[in-house]
């Protein structure tokens, strides 16, 4: 079951912030339905949601009625009026088109997700006489929609998981590609942090017993469909504020335009409703009004393509505002697995001797730590990995009791393990105990983990296991600092180790030996200081903190509790994405601000086009204001209206892609954007209107 959701290695992922070329935005299969939608959206009941465009629709209907009247009465030269009317309708259609294109991709995705929500049956288990459910319990097949919260079902190889739930028993590999687009199966097992399963995914091997946690209609898949489709799209706080600003501007222009007939009457002139409407429509912020909802939808869509589901637009906006980022050390800042970085022998032992013993002890050790010791020894001293069988070696695995592992080769016992355990096994009086302790303390101070190596009771030294900080993370943090975001590393390590990693990774602060309560307290403290906090988590004990954080990103692999508590779910379960999510949130706000500024700055040129055209009939002196040298009053008005409509189309790609976010300081960012969208917005329409004027005059439209 493949869907159109992109694979995580998709371009949108690697290039960051969901940037992509516009060709994929303007796909023909999305554009054609959008054209039909543009007409459907002319319905005033839909238009009403957007005050600016609603006002345009009202005045356009007015001029069309007047045009029909004039045509019926046989007024002379209706050509100009017809053209203005056409372009006013185009303005409306272009605005609807922008929104329809933005919605289009979501709709396509929702359709493919719906296909994933196939009609399945669940195997509802019947509790045995002790009230327990086991693999061998009896079950009855129940259609998925009839399953209730609390029911327990058995899912076996090849079965679809009928609804969201939590694994009670068993372990299985599950194909979640319907949700995540990731084709590699994932492991789901009872207990721990990977116990949540999602309805619509399929078990590939083994079996699990699942307790249903979501009723039909409110499952993860259902929510996902409604999210990508934008069915419950509500305006976000900033969007509402901006809508009010734009409505206020529109009111101001209503006053400015509605008083003109009286002024003109006083001056002894006359002015037609058509010209007033043309002026009004070009003045009110139609550009941003037309693109506003498209920007919002596209922002959500960028996140979805990034495989992050935001439960509300509010969360996406909040992401842009984040001041403090709480990052788990393991998996986010460090690679997660410790790597051997050094062999530190006690006096009288050579490094090579230690490396050789350590490698022997690790030959059969399949843990990443063990592997890294083998590799390090090979790199440093060209000691090749030897065959266990050839050595007649016997592997002694790690146990929680001994906390050591190693090999027995004949009577030779080589062990490596936690320093305390190793020292305990040789006794306090053995030689080199002090030396080993000294080395171990030194390693701990640097944030590493010491692993002592002993060969048949003889202490050889210590292997330095290091938490390896991810490549490039330091640069990411300094980038975040320039964005004004403080990063705090959360770790269960002791303060010494934590400090060392913090220093190495360049994180701003850290919380060591963190308990869930500590995390919650830290978030509250930051919020009390007026900061917005983002974090990600997967475990059940992360749930309170996820709920408290302004932006809580739950990992898809996490527990049901965590997924319920967060306001975003990362389908790829990649904690580093938090950084990109912040970028996407910022991009959303920036795009709105930039297009608003552009829209308002445009008005200056439109005034210079229309005012002289409007008044020159009775005040010929005002032709001085026609600084663009537009051919005739009619061509000037028509050009301004055409420009106003075309600029919407021209800016759709920008609205959908978003203004590029650069991690520089706010002042530099603002200076740049003001220059591009403010000053640019002043200049572009002068050129655009002039060009259109030359064109319409040369082909004789007016």
């Amino acid at each position, binding site marked *: 079951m493949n869907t159109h959701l992109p694979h995580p290695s998709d371009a949108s992922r690697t290039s960051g912030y969901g940037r992509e070329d516009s060709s994929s935005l303007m796909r023909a299969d999305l554009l054609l339905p959008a054209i039909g939608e543009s007409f459907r959206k002319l319905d005033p009941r839909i238009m009403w949601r957007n005050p600016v465009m609603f006002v345009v629709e009202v005045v356009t209907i007015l001029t069309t009625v007047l045009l029909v009247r004039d045509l019926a009465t046989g007024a002379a030269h209706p050509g100009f009026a017809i053209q203005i009317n056409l372009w006013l309708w185009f303005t409306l259609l272009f605005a609807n088109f922008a929104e329809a294109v933005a919605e289009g991709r979501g709709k396509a995705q929702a359709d493919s997700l719906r296909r994933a929500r196939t009609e399945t049956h669940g195997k509802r288990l019947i509790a045995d006489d002790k009230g327990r459910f086991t693999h061998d319990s009896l079950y009855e097949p129940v259609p998925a929609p009839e399953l209730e919260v609390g029911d327990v079902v058995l899912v076996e190889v090849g079965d679809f998981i009928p609804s969201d739930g939590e694994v009670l028993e068993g372990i299985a590999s599950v194909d979640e590609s319907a949700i995540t687009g990731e084709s590699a199966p994932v492991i789901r097992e009872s207990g721990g942090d990977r116990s949540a399963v999602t309805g619509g995914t399929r078990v590939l091997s083994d079996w699990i017993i699942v307790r249903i946690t979501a009723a039909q209609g409110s499952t993860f898949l259902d929510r996902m469909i409604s999210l990508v489709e934008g069915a419950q799209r509500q305006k976000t706080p*900033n969007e509402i504020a901006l809508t009010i600003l734009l409505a206020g501007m529109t009111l101001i222009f209503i*006053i400015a335009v509605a008083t003109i007939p009286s002024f003109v009457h006083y001056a002894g002139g006359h002015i037609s409703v058509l010209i007033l409407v043309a002026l009004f429509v070009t003045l009110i912020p139609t550009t941003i009004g037309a693109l506003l909802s498209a920007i919002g939808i596209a922002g959500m869509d960028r996140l979805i393509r990034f495989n992050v589901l935001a439960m509300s637009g509010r969360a996406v906006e909040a992401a842009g505002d984040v001041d403090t980022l709480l990052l788990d050390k393991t998996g986010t800042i460090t690679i997660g697995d410790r790597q051997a970085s050094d062999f530190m022998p006690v006096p009288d032992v050579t490094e090579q001797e230690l490396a050789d013993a350590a490698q022997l002890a690790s030959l059969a050790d399949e843990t990443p730590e063990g592997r890294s010791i083998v590799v390090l020894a090979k790199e440093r001293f060209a000691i090749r990995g030897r065959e266990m069988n050839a050595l007649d070696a016997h592997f002694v695995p790690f146990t929680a009791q001994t906390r050591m592992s190693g090999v027995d080769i004949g009577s030779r016992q080589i062990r490596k393990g936690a320093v305390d355990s190793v020292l305990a096994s040789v006794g306090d009086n053995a030689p080199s105990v002090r030396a080993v302790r000294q080395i171990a303390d030194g390693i701990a101070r640097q944030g590493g983990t010491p692993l002592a190596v002993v060969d048949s009771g003889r202490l050889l030294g210590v292997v330095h296991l290091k938490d390896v900080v991810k490549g490039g993370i330091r640069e990411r943090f300094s980038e975040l600092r320039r964005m004004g975001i403080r990063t705090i590393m959360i770790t269960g390590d002791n303060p010494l180790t934590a400090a060392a990693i913090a220093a190495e990774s360049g994180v701003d602060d850290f919380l060591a030996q963190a308990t869930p309560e500590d995390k919650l307290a830290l978030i509250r403290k930051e919020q009390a200081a007026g900061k917005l906090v983002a974090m990600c988590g997967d475990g059940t004990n992360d749930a309170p903190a996820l709920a408290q954080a302004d932006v809580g990103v739950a990992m898809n692999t996490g527990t049901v509790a965590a997924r319920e508590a967060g306001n975003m779910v990362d389908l790829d379960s990649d904690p580093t994405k938090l950084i990109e999510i912040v970028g996407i949130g910022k991009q959303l706000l920036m795009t709105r601000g*930039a297009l608003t500024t552009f829209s308002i700055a445009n008005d*200056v040129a439109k005034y210079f086009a229309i005012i002289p055209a409007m008044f020159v009939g009775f005040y010929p*002196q005002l032709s001085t204001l026609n600084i663009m040298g537009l051919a005739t009053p009619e061509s000037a008005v028509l050009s301004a209206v055409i420009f106003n409509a075309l600029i919407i189309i021209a800016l759709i790609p920008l609205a959908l892609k978003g203004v590029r976010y650069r991690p520089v300081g706010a002042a530099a960012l603002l200076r740049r954007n003001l220059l591009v969208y403010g000053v640019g917005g002043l200049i572009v329409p002068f050129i655009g209107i002039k060009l259109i004027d030359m064109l319409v005059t040369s082909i004789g439209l007016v």
Partner: protein
Amino acid sequence: MSITGWATIAFFLLCVVAITRPIGGFLKRVLEGETHFLGRIFGPLERSFYRLAGIRPDEGQSWTQYAFSVLVFKIACFLAVYGILRLQTHLPLNPMGQGAVAPDLAYNTAISFLTNTNWQSYSGETTMRHLSQMLAFTAQNFVSAAAGIAIAAAVIRGFARRSAGTIGNFWADLVRTTLYILLPACVLLTLFFVFEGVPQTLSGSATALTIEGAHQSIALGPVASQEAIKMLGTNGGGFFNTNSAHPFENPSALTNFVQMLCIFALGAGLTNMFGRMVGKERQGWAIFSAMVALFLVGVSVLYWSEAHSNPALAALGIDPSFGNMEGKETRFGIAASALFATVTTDASCGAVNAMHESFLALGGMVPLVNMMLGEVIFGGVGSGLYGFLLFAIIAVFMAGLMVGRTPEYLGKKIESREIKMTMLAVLCLPLVMLGFTALAIVIKPGLAALSATGPHGFTEALYAYTSAAANNGSAFAGLTANPFWNITLGVGMMIGRFFVIIPVLAIAGSMAAKKISVPTPGTFPTDTGLFIGLVMGVILIVGGLTFLPALALGPIVEHLAMLRGSLF
């Protein structure tokens, strides 16, 4: 244009810069209820006021309580002034025996004084008795100015406080401002004006024997005291009809200079008080700089325009190097008149030392535009600052989005409620200015009052309503007010005052309740040149877009016509 002219302007600006900080510091001490030397002297008096009125000055008010107090106070003021004007024949101190004021004029005048507009539809010396001038007008001059400062202080508290429910106590703010700032300053100023020759007497007039042997009656009265508060409180209502062009109101170049400085003094000081109260004086200086820059634009255009003579006069052989001296006092000249006209309309003062009607078209447009922008260039005491903050909110909102964050000003998030209130306040000005003008120029009673025709007549009407809505009170002259004008201008003044005050206090209330977020490199800094330029841009573009059609049909077309030799 001359070196001396520019030097006057430069020196004036220097003086404004010099007084801003000390005044701001003292304003803050007074309004925050801190200790200061005047408090040690008048403290008992202040406390006895509170005891008498049953006010607990430290008890904070929520924004609704604060706004309610303002309205109650203003209604009481209205009734008092209206009563005095209607009943002045029955009251003492009426040496000239003037009769009762007509109802529409009394209504217009009462509104005018309590809104700090001081639009005068009458000529002071021939209509008003001394008691009216002193009790009704001078008293209102004090308290309407004090109320303006009080409201500004409340708004600043909204920005400065975090998670607070109150924005100060209106009654305490009113008493403190009057008692510690306006009264002491005016006593000193009155003495200075008397020293410079401004009359201060209760006698009605002096009779003089002219050279031709005729007896001339010269109006006198308590001029100096009214003059002091007229300037300092940006009231602008003169004792005489010709206002500060009258030699008894403004006898010398020195008084002229001091008067201009007084107009800006408290407005400039308030920017500094703002900076101090929000914890960063630089924030105040940023606002100050934006205001200075806009002021310089205005004064330069006006001075440039008036330094040229009317080409029609030049054609008659009059030396064009005199510039346009029509309607100006020779003891001030062009530079000081241009400066005065800019200052009085930048601030919401409305005092005049030259007739704005007689400026050339572009020169006359400068005062008009200053008022259309909402008088946010220092502005009326208090109202200038909170008017400016409205534009700052719009600027921060638009630009703030462009840095990718929910917009913040001084750590306070700007959200839909603030935007709603800001737009409400910003909307009411064009509604009055353009709406009433549109009405007045198409109906008979409206047209009857205009003395000029064509674009100039249009400008007269536009100027009047603009001046009313902006609570400036300066007149373009040429307008003979009748009941229609008195009533509509009165309504305009009320809308321009209260439909700004109430939303602004609502903003203060919601701001006070917010947390203050800590500035980070990701926050848009509001104390830099970028911010100054941005706010100026927003003020000019929003104002310009709203009023360009009207200006095109008024001063702009008049200017272009003049260049081609036709006058109106």
